[in-house]
């Protein structure tokens, strides 16, 4: 009688079909999103954050096209493709790239689209334009990789959970003693040895601050010392670069190659890699050594390598962010796979809603459900208070703070305006600001966050480079940046203010999180996103000693209709009940609260 709820029709499909359906829905979803955007009136596009209205051209400043606009609530990021026109005729609009917005000066800067430099740019000074989101285009298909993977019986069995894990016992013993000699802790040694000794696959789950990337580097260096040719794959350039730089620290002489590295990622990151002796090559023309080399790239680069290019191992970093189909091109290049990640941190980015949620899972979560993994259980980042909250909420109490970090405390000089909030006796504090703002922005929270940061810097002497401000929505990030600019803090540029996606992998002494959504209706619709456990885990666990969560009580009131979203909402209420609360509603909200 006890049967698990089936996705009835899903059960009729093979995993291959489900993955193909996932890809088709993703592609279709993205296409439809843009098609529908082009059918909406301007106000709706503005409300949704996909448009900037009434941008007046003032002239050029070097490569930048400068506009003034009093309101910019858009979700645009630097580099996003935009179209500039009358807001009615998208085909006639000029393709440009979003550069920056200075809220203090109401100044918007756009640049030429690097892929479309011949765009019309005869903007008239003083004229008002509408800036709209534009499609990326040119999205590659991963369907071929899915079909290839399932035509390959060894890989098919692994993906379908029908593979039996085996390891080379002799290699396991040798790896243990080697890794012990590298000063790793016992959980790291066990996980690393299992990875080195596996005959097929191994999963290493690395919660925040547990040295996952350091262990990856040690494992890769150990394998390369035995003449292995390693493929290193991640979803983002940032993750690929971090892993490469970590390997360089451990293996100064090892040959490191990044495919697609001469065009992808930021110019600063490319310079860092070059300084570290990483060779940046074009994937299609790369001449790769046969042994003792690490060939790294994002998941989109591996299909471009020559067809017969194979590796002894494929190593994935941040595998919790990699959708299953995206892992397959790199998996097809070897018969042994090592996955480093954490399915309790950021999930893969998907653009459509998928009822078949397992097909939309990450490769790490998918394989972890079937084969389990090794948990790194000691964090060297968080102090006792932050670690306890994160551990109990997201890791079933299995994560512990290392002795070196357990008693760390935030600098504190009594006598500030927000002493109750910043008292180091409470590592995690909820600043309650009961606004009801609809949409993706809250001025109330922005002001509260700016005051907390200003107090941290001026009263308690925390350097701006040691503070991060995180919000779930880009529109709120813009508002926070503007509010912080008004504080005129020294070294303001060193203060990170961004969404949680942009800050994964980083750490700071203090983290201030703005939960933003205050309208119960909005909170209900968006709770799966803004209250998402993985995202909150990442946000909270960036901190070494202090987390300040600024949020409206109404944020937690949502009762979503979807059972998974309801579970998320419930777990968030649990989290709320564990926090020390300081109610500053009267200070930051008007009569609406």
């Amino acid at each position, binding site marked *: *009688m*006890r*049967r*698990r*709820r*089936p996705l*009835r*029709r899903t059960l009729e*499909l093979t995993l291959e*079909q*489900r993955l*193909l*359906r996932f890809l*088709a*829905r993703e592609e*279709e979803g993205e*296409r439809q999103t843009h*098609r*529908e955007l*082009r*059918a*909406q*009136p*301007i*106000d*709706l596009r*503005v*409300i949704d954050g996909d448009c900037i209205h009434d941008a007046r051209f003032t002239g050029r400043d070097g490569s930048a096209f400068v506009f003034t606009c009093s*309101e910019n*609530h858009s979700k645009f990021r630097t580099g996003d493709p935009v179209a500039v026109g009358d*807001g*009615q*005729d998208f*085909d006639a609009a000029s393709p440009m790239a979003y550069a920056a917005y200075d809220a203090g000066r109401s100044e918007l800067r756009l640049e030429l689209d690097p892929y479309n430099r011949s765009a019309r740019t005869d903007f008239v000074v003083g004229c008002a334009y509408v800036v709209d989101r534009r499609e990326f285009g040119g999205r590659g298909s991963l369907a071929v990789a899915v079909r290839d993977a399932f035509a390959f019986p060894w890989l098919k069995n692994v993906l379908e959970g029908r593979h039996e894990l085996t390891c080379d016992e002799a290699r396991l013993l040798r790896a243990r003693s080697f890794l012990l000699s590298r000063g790793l802790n016992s959980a790291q040694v066990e996980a690393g040895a299992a990875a080195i000794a596996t005959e097929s696959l191994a999963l290493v789950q690395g919660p925040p601050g547990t040295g996952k990337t350091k262990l990856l580097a040690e494992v890769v260096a150990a394998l390369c010392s035995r003449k292995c040719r390693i493929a290193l794959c991640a979803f983002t350039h940032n993750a690929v670069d971090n892993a490469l730089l970590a390997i360089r620290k451990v293996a100064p002489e090892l040959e490191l190659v990044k495919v697609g590295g001469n065009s992808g990622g930021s110019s600063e990151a490319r310079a860092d890699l070059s300084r570290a002796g990483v060779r940046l090559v074009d994937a299609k023309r790369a001449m790769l050594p046969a042994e003792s080399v690490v060939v790294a790239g994002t998941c989109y680069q591996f299909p471009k390598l020559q067809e017969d290019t194979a590796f002894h191992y494929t190593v994935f970093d941040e595998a919790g962010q990699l959708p299953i189909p995206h892992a397959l091109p790199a998996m097809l290049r070897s018969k042994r796979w090592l996955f480093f990640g954490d399915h309790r941190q950021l999930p893969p980015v998907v653009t459509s809603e998928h*009822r078949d949620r397992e097909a939309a899972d990450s490769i790490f979560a998918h394989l972890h459900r079937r084969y389990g993994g090794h948990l790194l259980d000691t964090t060297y980042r968080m102090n006792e208070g932050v670690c306890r909250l994160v551990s109990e909420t997201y890791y079933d109490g299995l994560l512990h703070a290392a002795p070196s970090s357990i008693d760390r405390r935030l600098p504190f000089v009594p006598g500030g305006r927000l002493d109750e909030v910043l008292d180091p006796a409470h590592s995690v504090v909820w600043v309650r600001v009961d606004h*009801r*703002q*609809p*949409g993706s922005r809250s001025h109330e929270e922005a002001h509260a966050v700016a005051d907390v940061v200003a107090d941290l810097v001026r009263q308690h002497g925390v350097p701006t480079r040691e503070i991060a401000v995180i919000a779930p929505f880009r529109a709120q990030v813009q508002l926070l940046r503007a509010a912080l600019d008004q504080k005129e803090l020294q070294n303001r540029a060193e203060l990170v203010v961004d969404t949680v996606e942009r800050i994964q992998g980083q750490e700071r002494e203090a983290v201030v999180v703005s939960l933003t959504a*205050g*309208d*119960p209706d*909005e909170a209900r619709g968006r709770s799966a996103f803004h209250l998402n456990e993985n995202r909150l885990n990442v946000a909270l666990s960036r901190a070494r000693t202090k987390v300040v969560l600024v949020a409206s009580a*109404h944020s937690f009131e949502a*009762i*979503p*209709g*979807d*059972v998974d*979203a*309801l*579970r998320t909402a*419930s*777990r968030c*209420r*649990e989290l709320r*009940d564990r926090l020390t609360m300081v109610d500053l509603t009267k200070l930051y909200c*008007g*009569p*609406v609260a």
Partner: protein
Amino acid sequence: MRRITGTHVYSYAKCPRLAALDLSLPKSERRVWHPWEEFAAKRGRDFEDEFVATLAAVQPEYPARDFDRGAAATLELLKQGVPWIHQAVLLGDQRLGLPDLLRKVDGPSKLGSHHYEVLDVKTSGLARGDQVLQVMFYTRLLAELQGRMPERAAIILKDGSEHGFATADYLAVTRDVEGALLRLAAHPDLARPFLQRGCESCHWSDHCLPELTAKGDLSLVAGMSHGARAILEANGCRTVADLAEFSNDGRSLSQLDSALVRRLRKAAQARLAAAPTVEARPRQKGSLSLDRAAIIHLLTDPYAGRVLAFAVQHPIGDDNGIAVELPASVATEWSALKALLARVPTGVPLLHFDSALPRWYEAHAFSREADTGLAARFVDLQRRLRAAALFPEPAFTLADLVRCALSRDPLRAGHWGQAAMWAAEADGADKLVAKARADVQDLADLKRRVLDAAPTPA
């Protein structure tokens, strides 16, 4: 004060006002059920009886509505350790739970070496949040009785499968909802009405809707949210009439986005004018143009998971161009749709309403014929209409849109909920065809009068 029951929990998840009225007003004041609502409820009861009959479950015996005696009889059965208990009575402070089933499981408790977990029988195909909350309400009552929180609970779905879940995952939200309900039981006035999806079919609609209309409540404005209403009211804008004349920019309204204020103000004006305001939108060219589109519509029986009728109109507006197919079973649904689509040129956009068609397609396309190109032609008319115009009232359903934009009775060929009833009647096919044709005509007229119309002059 009335006892809080699982039904109140279920109601609260939909609307706090619904729960407050359920708790404070006599049942006799509720709207009488329509026959199709009775029909659906009977199917639910029959399914539960059918399911329970397979379990040899024991039912506590007690005089009707004497819940104290029922609770005592239930406790006796719990102590005896019978494998299944049907319609147990669980009593707590001001709370009463009547779960469909309790199942005995191993593990010590105040009852002995065993304890129980809750199962509730539902007629839906997928578990929903409100159902989980209801089961959790029963679970907490059961935990007090047996001195142990069961690790699991479950919902039985319409195909007899079990949606099990960990009770720990939902405890915090259940505690909060119970707390809110206790406050509402003491002070029902805490819950103000708010016009939302589902109000039309609510049994208190005769109560709330006139109240909202009399007050000119802001929730009568399309696009309003609870948060926006609170902010507007706090700034002295309390009625639809106030909002329609509101002249300040967004910044004075607790910094509500000015684009949102503009849109809400236009919606308030549309309500006062009792006509939609058509908005200027980007020009749709080439493949984005809907000039050559077809309409595709379906009537379903959600309980049976069946499509009862597919209808297609091409060209739009041509009543002779409407074709209807009535699939005899799930197995023939795909071929029925294919037959209809053969009448429509390849590549023509297919205008449908809401998510019923894409959902049906997703469930079928990959297990039958992988015609993935078809999904690329779907265009949601509801979404387009909402973007194209500000309607005089929040339009949640096709019926709402037809009423407020076409001033026509949307139920002239019957209510969509009747479709499942008709399928079992001798002349049901004619009614299904008539309803499908009426809906398609409404969709075509909505397209013509809203999507194809010139923007309303400012």
